[in-house]
């Protein structure tokens, strides 16, 4: 990746936040061949590995406003940002290596497995 591009036609840039990282993650799942079920399964897998619960339970247990990510505790938001960033890179690398082949359910399961693997790595970085 060319981070220090000297190109004269520079792309429009903006501050990267949780929403942008989430969109990159869902796009990576899609690019690997995952359908809507893969998005749901991967999201649950990441939450289980990072927080030992699913997204609905995460909102309930932290007293956050349902489905408003900005109301989650900051530590949880940070963990999701790291988790989704690592998983996005791992998915892209695995996709380039041709790892996501087979029927739709098979592809979905492989994507979920990869996201779970990435999330396990990330969990170790956090103190809980």
């Amino acid at each position, binding site marked *: 990746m060319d981070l220090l591009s000297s190109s004269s036609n520079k792309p429009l840039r903006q501050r990267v936040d949780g*929403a942008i990282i*989430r969109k990159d993650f*869902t796009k990576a799942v899609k690019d690997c061949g995952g359908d*809507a*079920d893969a*998005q*749901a*399964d991967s*999201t*649950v897998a990441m*939450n*289980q590995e990072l927080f*030992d619960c*699913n*997204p*609905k*339970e995460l909102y309930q247990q932290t007293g956050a406003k*349902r*489905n*408003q*990510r900005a109301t989650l505790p900051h530590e949880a938001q940070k963990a*999701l940002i790291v988790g989704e960033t690592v998983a996005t890179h791992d998915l892209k690398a695995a996709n380039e290596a041709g790892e996501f082949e087979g029927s739709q*359910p098979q592809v979905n399961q492989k994507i979920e497995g990869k996201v779970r693997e990435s999330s396990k790595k990330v969990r170790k970085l956090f103190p809980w």
Partner: protein
Amino acid sequence: MNMQELQAVTYRAWENRSRYHCAIVQPEYFESEISTYGDLEDRETWEKAYSVFQALNIEESCLDAYELITIQFNYPSDHAQFELRCRVFDEFLALPDGLELIKAGLEDLFGNGCTPEEQTDGFFAMVERQLRIRADRGDAVGPLKQLIEQAA
């Protein structure tokens, strides 16, 4: 989707009811649970069971409400599973938080006059179909219609 494929996706959706709670999957209870929705020989039974399980799975996996609009219920009307997804949508709207979550998603996407980057045509096709079915059945269309008009 043939009957065998429908049974396979129903099993996966049922299995996810346990997996999403880190609970042990007990396949021996699968058929008896499906039979609470009707005769195992009828396709209708499987479609109903699948829709109920899948709606619950989508609700529990939802981290950002706008993805209900851009991903989970955004199937183009010519998609092979459009009809089945419409049934899931119907079950989703019947959940206690269902309509509120859809509302939150629409606000995320269209709040402050924003136009979403993603295509959402599939979602609105699903809503239109839902409104038609409800009107035919004589059910209330009010809250859903109101939401959509606000988004538009």
